[in-house]
Every structure is written in C-alpha cells, then in structure tokens.
C-alpha cells in the first residue's frame, strides 16, 4: 500500500458521491492540485467532520492509488494555522467561491501549484479579516493571473513603454497584448479595446503591483477595470465561471 502523505490544503470543490462518499478537488501546498475520494465522509464525523466542505482549510491525509486519478483521502484534520471565517457574510462567501473557482480554472492537475495555494490562502485570510470588496476581487484576479503566468501590464504602455497615467490621459486595455496602450499609441489598439480612465488605469496599476493583503485599503478600478479583467479571463478560460453570477449581483 502506498505511504500516507499529508499536506495543508484548501477545498476548492466538493460533491457527494453515492450515499456516503464525497469527491473533492483540493489545492495543496506540497502536492499540487489533487482530486480525491473520501469514503464514508458523510458518516464518519470522526475522520472528516465538516472539513470536506468547499472553501475550507485543512490538513489532508491521503494515499495515492496506483490506478485511477483520484487519491484516497484517509482523514482530514484542522489546518496548521487558524482558518479565516468566511461563512458569516454573503459577500465573503460569494467572493471566496469565485476565488476558489478561478484558482481551480487557472491551475492544472499536475502543475506545481504551491504559488496558487499560497495566493488563495492569503486571499481567504484577507477576505476573512476585511470582508469582500471590488478591490479585493480585482487584486486577487491580477495576482492569481500573475502566478499563473499572465502578468498583465497597466503601468506602462505595451507599445512605447511610457506611463499612460502620467500623461493624465485614458489608457486602452488590449486583451491580445495582455496590457494597456497609451492614448498616443491608440492606433495600435484594436476596435474592442477597453477604455480605462486615468484614475481607473492608475488604480489597476496599483492593484497589480500590490499584495492581496493591501487590497482592503485600496481603490478599485471601477467598472472599466472589471470589464478589462472579465475580457481577459474570458479569453483564456473555456467557460464562464459559475460563481460569477452571484458575485456580480452583489457588487
């Protein structure tokens, strides 16, 4: 039998499978993203209790199975550090769900997702402390995209390298360029570019360069920033995120 392994983990998705089992997708610190099956999860409160719920931090114990993609989850224990409280506010639940779904969509099964795990863990902590806000959402989107290899550029024009906000003029976000072009280089921006006011372009640049912990004190990049991010995410994801609807209705 393969040895039991353990790692801190966050439950991204969970669903009941048969009468007593549960299938979960976890982002782990040490073992990448894992799919696992917890036999008897619904009846064995001693081994699993409420810990196999989406958005939960836990210490995961599992064995790999020689055949099959799902690891065999043996038990779940409390996480190494106290977990943030996310279920006392609808905005927190909505944003945390969105964060989990986006992280799931942007990480591959086998990929080294330690950075994504840390990003989600830090975002959940910040969310638990400060509550949900548009700035928090945009900050997480920008930070997770960077971790996933899509660093978006808002501080410098992708064509001439100048700072669009210094000139006090609007900037234009171009999906295909993964960043903005300044007003002077606007000829290089295609028809569908998203216009960002000077203030919103500056807010985007600030959010992109700041850790997610700072987002609670920062200004969001408005509907223009949200649209730019939605367009970019739409271009790299093969489906619309299910949790976006509730989140959009709340903020």
């Amino acid at each position, binding site marked *: 039998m393969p040895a039991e392994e353990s790692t801190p983990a966050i439950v991204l998705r969970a669903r009941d499978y048969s009468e007593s089992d549960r299938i979960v997708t976890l982002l782990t610190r040490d073992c990448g993203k894992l799919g696992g099956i917890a036999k008897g999860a619904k009846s064995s*409160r001693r081994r699993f209790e409420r810990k196999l719920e*989406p*958005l939960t931090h836990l210490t995961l114990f599992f064995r790999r199975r020689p055949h099959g993609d799902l690891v065999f989850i043996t038990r779940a224990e409390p996480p190494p550090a106290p977990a943030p409280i996310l279920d006392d506010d609808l905005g927190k639940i909505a944003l945390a*769900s969105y964060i989990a779904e986006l992280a799931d969509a942007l990480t591959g099964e086998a990929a080294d997702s330690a950075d994504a795990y840390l990003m989600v863990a830090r975002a959940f902590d910040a969310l638990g402390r400060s509550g949900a806000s548009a700035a928090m959402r945009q900050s997480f989107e920008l930070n997770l995209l960077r971790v996933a290899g899509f660093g978006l550029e808002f501080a410098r024009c992708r064509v001439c390298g100048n700072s669009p906000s210094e000139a006090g003029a609007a900037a234009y976000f171009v999906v295909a360029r993964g960043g903005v072009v300044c007003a002077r280089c606007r000829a290089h921006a295609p028809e569908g570019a998203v216009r960002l006011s000077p203030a919103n372009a500056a807010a985007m640049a600030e959010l992109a360069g700041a850790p997610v912990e700072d987002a609670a004190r920062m200004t969001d990049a408005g509907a223009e920033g949200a649209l730019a991010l939605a367009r970019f995410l739409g271009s790299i994801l093969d489906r619309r995120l299910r949790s976006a609807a*509730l989140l959009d209705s709340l903020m």
Partner: protein
Amino acid sequence: MAENFKRNDGLPPAMTRLVKELSRLPGIGEKTASRLAFNLLNRPRDEVIALAEALLEMKERIGLCGECFGLSDAPRCPICADPDREHDLICVVEGPADLMAIERARTFAGVYHVLHGAIAPLDGIGPDDIKIAELTARVQGAAAVREIIIATNATVEGEATALYLARALKPLGVKASRLARGLPAGGDLEYSDSATLTSAISGRREL
C-alpha cells in the same frame, strides 16, 4: 467518474435492463442491483405489480403543496391544512427530507417552507433557482407572520442561503432567526437526531 456499466454476460436482456435501472439509484451499485433484481424475479407476481404500481402512483400523484412547497398529493399538504398548527411561524428548510427530520423530532408546531435547494455559488445555483421569491411573496401575502426560522444546513451553501434570506426578509419587517450554530454536527439537517434538532430550534438566535 462515469460508472462503467459492465455487460452482464449470460443475463437475459430483461434482467439486464432492470439491473441497469436499479443501479441508477443512489447507493446502489451493480452488485446490489443484481441482488435486488434476482429477489424481485423470485417474488410472487402480485407483489411485483404492487411495487411497480406504487412507483407509478408516487410519480403521478405526488406534487408540491401550493403553500409550503412540501411534497403533497393534494393541492394543500396536511400540515398546511391543519388548523391546530401555528400558521404565523414558518420554518424554512432546504428539502423535503429536512422537513421530515424536524417533524420526526415532534418539537415544532408551526408550518414550513421548502426551498428545494440552497444557494450554491460553485454550482451556479443562485437565489432565483430556489423557492425564495415564493417565500417573500408568501410573507407579504400572509395576514401576519410572527417569525421565520431559517433551518438551512450548517454548510457553506446553507449559510449563504440563510444570509441571503435574512437580507431579503429584513425590508418586510418580519422577525427572522437561525438555528443554533454548529449543532447539527455534520451540517446536514436530515442526518441530525431529534434531540439535536430540538435544541437547535429552541436555541435559535435572531438574525
């Protein structure tokens, strides 16, 4: 995770079909389904007919109560039709199984509202996908509602639903309360025992 249905070689097609249908049921694997099928094969004909008829009748007659949306074979379920229940006290649950669990505890004398689900952001299930608008309409239409007890599960989805309901009910000026937190240990109300449910209801807190 599609359950790969193995061909039962040597089994007559009529048996294979039954095994296949039975194994669609939750908790029934192929082995159990075969055992059930052989058991049915060996039963007297009238017993098998009674089972088949019960299944059909259930499917054809059971609908939803027009008031509480609980399962009912009449336009109004026996609980809603009972004059002795407290009609100004409404307990909101996720599903019919939760209603049954609370009824079994024999501790609640009010009426119910069955949502038929919970807000589940990760599954894309929003407020409009469950019977929340029906609840607010019911509260607005009722003569007076003394209190609404939100008895959704102690899961993320159950909490999201409770928080949303509290928001939706506030402008209607009706008192809303939530089951005592953490009491149904595993989260699912339907698996809680009667004593746990009784203390969860009596220990409820106002939202």
